[in-house]
């Protein structure tokens, strides 16, 4: 008859525990090491610069903040007032957001049909198309911007928002196509077939079944496009300056070497921190690592 109770009484006694204070298992030890490394990394690369920037944002021009002082002698909000009064910063920020949105939408619209064709069909030129779509990611963006800038100059698109949008899409489109193609490849063939047996014409099946299932791809690619457009400099500068100045280009004019404008840049950075935090919280929620790896992870 088997004994229901645990074998506690018959088990041999346990040897004594390790010394007090030592981590009770290798896991705890390595966990602490890992956590320490990560937090150290973040402290060094994120917290420390942030602290310095905050200090610079409250720079007092009356007193100055010169070496060897580690902390400023006095603080002032003059830089903030200056930035608020600056008529150019807010429009630039809004322009950047608008351009990024338009770029993302346009990119997604252009990318989807091509990605669909690449993912769902096999055709002879497929590899060639793959390589061609990859090419803008290989050739430095500045090269294309230079030539495109000249074309736009001749056609009157230079110095316009449309021009900036068009040139930025060149940079975001390849990535979006690749991410979407990878996502669409993962949608089982049977689903579209099932829809068609139930009476849906091909187009409807694509729009009502495949498109929603491709959502992670759109999210990941869209976010990367948005971020890419928002922080892009070289192409926008080549095509847009001086009439159209998204935020990155505007900031460039503040940092042309004059040290006294550091406080302004510091303030703008801190103001930008809010949308940045929003965006990267979104990236954590919406994007999936496997989707991004699929689009970015193979060349």
């Amino acid at each position, binding site marked *: *008859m*088997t*004994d*229901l109770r*645990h*074998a*506690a009484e018959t*088990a*041999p006694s*346990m*040897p004594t*525990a*390790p010394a007090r204070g*030592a*981590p*009770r*298992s*290798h*896991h*705890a*030890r*390595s966990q602490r090491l890992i956590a320490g490394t990560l937090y150290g990394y973040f402290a060094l690369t994120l917290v420390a610069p942030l602290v310095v920037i905050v200090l610079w944002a409250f720079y007092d021009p009356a007193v100055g903040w010169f070496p060897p002082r580690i902390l400023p002698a006095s603080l002032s909000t003059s830089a903030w007032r200056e930035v608020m009064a600056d008529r150019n910063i807010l429009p630039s920020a809004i322009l950047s957001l608008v351009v990024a949105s338009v770029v993302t939408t346009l990119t997604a619209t252009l990318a989807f049909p091509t990605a669909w064709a690449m993912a769902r069909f096999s055709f002879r030129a497929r590899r060639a198309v793959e390589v061609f779509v990859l090419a803008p990611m290989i050739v430095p963006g500045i090269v294309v911007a230079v030539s495109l800038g000249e074309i736009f100059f001749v056609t009157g698109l230079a110095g316009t928002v449309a021009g900036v949008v068009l040139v930025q899409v060149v940079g975001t489109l390849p990535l979006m196509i690749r991410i979407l193609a990878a996502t669409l490849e993962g949608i089982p063939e049977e689903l579209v077939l099932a829809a068609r047996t139930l009476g849906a014409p091909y187009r409807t099946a694509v729009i009502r079944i495949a498109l929603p299932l491709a959502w992670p791809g759109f999210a990941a690619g869209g976010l990367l496009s948005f971020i890419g457009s928002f922080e892009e400099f070289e192409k926008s500068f080549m095509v847009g300056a001086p009439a159209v100045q998204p935020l990155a280009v505007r900031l460039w004019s503040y940092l042309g070497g004059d040290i006294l404008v550091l406080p302004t840049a510091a303030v703008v950075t801190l103001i930008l921190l809010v949308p940045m935090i929003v965006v990267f919280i979104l990236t954590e929620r919406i994007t999936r690592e496997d989707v991004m790896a699929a689009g970015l992870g193979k060349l």
Partner: protein
Amino acid sequence: MTAPTSAHLVARGLTKDFGTTRALHQIDFEARPGRFVCLLGPSGCGKTTLLRLIAGIAEPTAGEIALNGRRIDAVPPERRNFGMVFQTYALFPHMSVRRNVGFGLDMRRIERAEARRRVDAALALVGLGHLAERLPRQLSGGQQQRVALARAIVIEPDLLLFDEPLSNLDARLRDDLREDLRALQRKLGITSVYVTHDQAEAMAMADEIVVMRNGRIVERGAPADLYRHPATRFTADFLGLTNVLRLPVRGGTAPLPWGGTRPVPGAPDGEAAVAIRPEDLPLAAADDGPATIETAVFLGAAIHYTFRCAGASYRAIAPGGLRAVLAPGTKVRPEAPAALHRLADDAPAPAAPAPEAADVL
């Protein structure tokens, strides 16, 4: 290969929490030297969690593990010298079979010629010497699992840990590999802990079965003992089909629904839950029989019947082959075993619907 020294594993008070969920409650577990112990239970019972704690790839919330009397809590998995075989085989896809099997020897800095000898020996033991240069993706599932086995034994581990290794294989392959695996373990004499949800597998392979449910150990014992004399209804249900009858016991005997009485050893007066295996209920066709066949299914080697008696349904299993199948509606007289086995714990398996006297797996 030299026979490794057999290891004695003892775990005490093992508890594992995942956030607010407790996966293991104060588990006391022992694997004696050379024994093949199966952890058996439904999914979610904690058997895989327990295995991972033993392997060191998960950390216990509380409790202790000792090998041959020495605590191994503080020892990282790479130094525990346990061989582990996974359900998904977990072969390194970028390495050939030879390099896969030799990986553990590589980590132990075994000298090249010696390592090669041992890899060849291990591959010969599992019958795959001719596939040494292949990549995992060029092998079938069964072959991959044999490679995984070779990889685990070539390091001469103190303990072998198996995490449902045969679940991904199809039925015929599973049976073959099951026999080979057990034969190999017997030959090498390595203490083994084997996780499975398949009761037939556990019955066929184990020296000792540990039945688990909801993070606790329900019972443990040799397969035949557990089958014939389960203490709990859960075990009875899990290890094959069973009939559970609630009978009034008076003076150590109880009346059967179809007439006659039988002794119930160890039962006090009052109601007792009694388990009768369907194969222990031979049915004889009788015109005045108290029971009537409800359903009959011919399965080849066996015939599965359900019959009704006194308003309840029961299961019976009769040998098949050339024997005639009793048609539904036939009156029969069931014959019960000489003594009835009383269940100490009547609690039914958790997700089971409210049972009648006859139960299904």
